[in-house]
Every structure is written in structure tokens, then in C-alpha cells.
């Protein structure tokens, strides 16, 4: 387990940051389990988390452009557009979904369930 990972009632939880540290239109990339990374996006108030890995060629995804009007992120390497709610690609060349994770806000803290 990484420093920011905990187990609460059998569920692994990752501390992301305080709510104020993730304003609308921003992203935080955090360490997840087993060496993976997860991007947590604030899509105009809606918090959404997706693995930071494009299913096309396993390159980083979360540093791509966030479109808050559609809650999508564009892969910076080949331009596939991913729906942050479902993880499904809306355009090629990616065709497989990327895992998404529930985001919880408690006591002004943003946490991920993984």
C-alpha cells in the first residue's frame, strides 16, 4: 500500500486532497494500487476518477485536455476522447474502456475507492 492508501471496512481508499485543492476544471493525479496512477477530475463540480492509462497504447491519459462541457478527457498522445463517467472511448483509435473509480467527499476530503 502507498502512503495515501488506507483500508476502511474492507475497501481500499486513497486520500486525494482537500476539496479546495481541486477546483473546477482541474485534475489531480494520484498513486493507485499496484503501481498504477489515477486521474481525479473536477468537471464543473462533478468529481470523476479514471485510470491514468489510455487503453490504446498504455500511455498517460489524465494530463490530456479536460472538456468540462462533455466531461471528457482527450488522450494527449493520439487524441482518443474518453467519457470520464463510463471510461468508454468516444473516438478511435482507442476502443476499450478505461477503468473508472467512485469518488467520495467527506469532511472536505476527496477520497477514492479502489
Amino acid at each position, binding site marked *: 500500500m502507498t502512503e495515501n492508501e488506507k483500508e476502511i471496512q474492507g475497501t481500499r481508499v486513497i486520500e486525494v486532497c482537500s476539496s479546495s485543492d481541486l477546483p473546477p476544471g482541474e485534475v489531480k493525479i494520484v498513486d493507485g494500487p499496484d503501481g498504477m496512477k489515477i486521474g481525479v477530475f473536477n468537471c464543473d463540480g462533478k468529481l470523476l476518477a479514471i485510470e491514468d492509462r489510455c487503453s490504446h497504447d498504455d500511455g498517460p491519459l489524465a494530463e490530456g485536455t479536460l472538456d468540462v462541457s462533455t466531461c471528457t478527457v482527450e488522450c494527449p498522445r*493520439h487524441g*482518443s476522447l474518453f467519457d470520464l463517467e463510463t471510461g468508454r472511448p468516444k*473516438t*478511435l*483509435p482507442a*476502443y*476499450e474502456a478505461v477503468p473508472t473509480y467512485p469518488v467520495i467527499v467527506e469532511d472536505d476530503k476527496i477520497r477514492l475507492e479502489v
Partner: protein
Amino acid sequence: MATPEQAVTQRPAEEEGLTEINSDYKEKFGFSDPETGYVYKAPKGLTRELVESISEYKDEPQWMRDFRLKALEHFESRPTPQWGGDLDQIDFDDIHYFVRASERPERSWDDVPEDIKETFDRLGIPEAERQFLAGVGAQYESEVVYHQINEELEKQGVIFLDMDTALREHEEIVREHWATIIPANDNKLAALNSAVWSGGSFVYVPKGVKVEMPLQAYFRINTENMGQFERTLIIAEDGSDVHYIEGCTAPVYSTDSLHSAVVEIIAKPGARVRYTTVQNWSQNVYNLVTKRAVAHEDATMEWVDCNLGSKLTMKYPSIYLMGERAHGEILSIAFAGEGQHQDAGGKIVHTAPNTTSSIFSKSISKDAGRTSYRGLLEIADGASESKSKVVCDALLLDENSRSDTYPTIRIGEDDVDVGHEATVSKIGDEQVFYLQSRGLSEEEASKMIVNGFIEPITKELPMEYAVEMNRLIELQMEGSIG
């Protein structure tokens, strides 16, 4: 490209045909018109201002302007690819990115400016339209100068327009599908096309409509150091059927031009789309094209890709089989003569169960020409019980020619059936000797062997194009013996 008019009317006895093909590309296709009387010709070079002015000139919606500008950023931030052919010789600052030769696309040849019409007359396009096409688009430089579709098809709801007009008249449907198959940032050349695109075709075939005769687009570059960046989008609704043919030629110049198209095709459930290319650019054209299609459930997508001309072609039509029982086929011919490199091939990705595909590639190299087959076959997790066959054959006509094969196969399922065959051969002395013993000259014998080699693909072309394709191959073969 194919000039069916000549094929139909000038194909008498074999001997006469062989005499005829002595004339070279320059006379048949390589002529140029004076670059005068143009409506607008942008200065050389690629800048943000140029991209903005193209968009403004075309009076585009804001989303398209934003798309172009973002694509320009992608183009500028991406390195030039170092695989495939040598692209380092392209000077992107020494290209005219936008040249408008006439005011608007006309629906009657009589209204097309005289000198441009003469060019297409020489290429046999209006004649072909009368004889066997359901619709024709003719692009000259950056924009389409003529566009027409059979009235019956129009009544059935088929849309066949130049891309600029389609964006104005059918913005919603264009926007819904635009760049969903090939995003602006897919690769450096797709980014360039996305930034400066102009012209190309938009085809929409409504549910259940079968377009019996082919639609054709013909692309002509005239200006020296010109960049042509057309953009084509074909949407075939459920159960529809369409065959689209494109051809292209350019004048022979001593400096290089660039052709970089993007073609996106969507074959919805049960639809069938065939896209045939007869590429015959002059040998000073870099031909760097991104073509991709998706085939949904029970749909069929076929690329028939014939690459004859150009200095360097890098083109790998691809098909994503997205729904169960979808089928994809790629038939590819590449012919490389002196100073030419044809880096062609195809990609097929099976993402759904029970999908089937095949890639047949034939390449011919002569006079130190170079052909490369570059292909990908991928069967993704979940695409169980899929079947695919890849066959790539290369024919070398002399010691100095070169052929390379770069096949990639990725398989994520156990219960699939995948075959791959590759051959490289030379014209055999025994074959030539046998044909000579039957009364053919050595040159005729070689031509016959080459035509036999590519026959599995030319037989898939409409008759007029198959004849023309054989003629072009014969033309390329001139002087290859002795």
C-alpha cells in the same frame, strides 16, 4: 489515376495498345495549366493566421475554427515520424497550403471555368460520369470545382457533396461524426490535414438505400509546391450499400508537392462500403494519407487500394470491426519504379466476436524502386471465434529493387483462426521463356506475368478501372526489359 474514357475508347488490338502506352505520364497526366486567374492563392508557409484565414474565407462555425487551431498546435508539437519513408526532405514552409481556383462547386460542367474543364476533359472525367457513375466530385487544387449526383439518388436521400458545402448545409450530422474515427491528434499528418483541410467529399447513405453505381471523386493538383488536404467522410446507415472511387494525378514538376488526406468511414449495422483508390500522382508528390473505417455489427468494409505514382506514399487503410460478425477486407497493390517508395499496407482490428477479415497485398518493384508492406492484424480480448487471413506477395523485377515486409500480428484470444502468408519472387526465366515460345516478345511476356500477379486485385475493380489499371501497370513496365 484511372481515366476510364481512354480505357473504354482507346483499347483496340493488343499491338495498338502497346504502341499507345509508349507515351509517358507527362503527356497523359503530367501537363499543367497556367496558375493565373485564381480566386485566391495563399502565400507559402503554415501559420496560425493562415489557418484562421482559411476558416474565415470559408465562413466556418466557431467549433471548426477551434478544431483547426488546436490541430495546428498538435502538428507543431509532434516530431516528424522517423519510420517508414524519409519525410525529412519535406519543407513545410515551402508549400502553398490553400489555393482556390474557382468561386464555387458547379453542378454543370458548362459552368466550370474553361481551362479547368479542359483539364478534366483530358482526364476523361465527364465522359466517365455519363457512362457509369452515379455521381462525381472533381477537386482542383484546394477546393471542389464540380459536384453532381444522380437525381434518383438525391430523391432517396443520398447526400454526395463536397465537404465544405456539407459543413454549411448539414452541420449537425457532420459535427456528430467529424474526427470521431481519426482525431486531429492521431498522427502528425492527420493533425496537419485537420488544421488546413479543404475540399474532399461527404457521403451520406440513408438506411436501406443501395447505391448501385459508384460515386467518384477525382483530385487534381496543378500548382507547383502545392499542398492538397482534402477531407472525406462517408456515413452508411443501417443496411445501406455504397461504392466510392477516388483517383488523383498531378503535373510533373521538379519540386515536390504534398498530398495529405484524411478519410473517415462509418459503416453502421448491416451496411456495406467499398472504397477504391487508384492513386497515380506524378513522381514529385509526397502522398501521406490517413484512412480509417469502422464496421459495426454485420457490416462489411472493403478498401481496394492501388498505389502507382508519387515519390513516397505512406498509407495504411485500416478497419476497426466493432460489432459482431462485421467483415473487413483490404486489397492493396503497390508499384514502385525508379525513385519511388511505396510504403503501403493495411490494418485490421477485431474488437468483437465472430468477426472476419482479410488483407491481400501485392507489390511490384522495378528500376531500384522500393515497396514496403506494413500491416497490423489485431484480435482484441473478447473477439472470440474471429478469423483472419493476411497474404502479402512481392515481385521484384530486377536486382536493384527492394521489397520489405513489416507485419505485426497481435492476438488476445485463443479460439481464433489466423493465417499469414508472405512471398517474394522474381519474374522467372522459365516463365518468360515459355511465353516467348508461344510467340510473345520478352516485354509482352513480362507484362503478362505482372498482370497475372495483380489479377486477384484488379478483378475486384469495376471493369473500366481494371482495364485502366492494367494499362497503367503496362505503362510503368515500359522499358523494363533489356
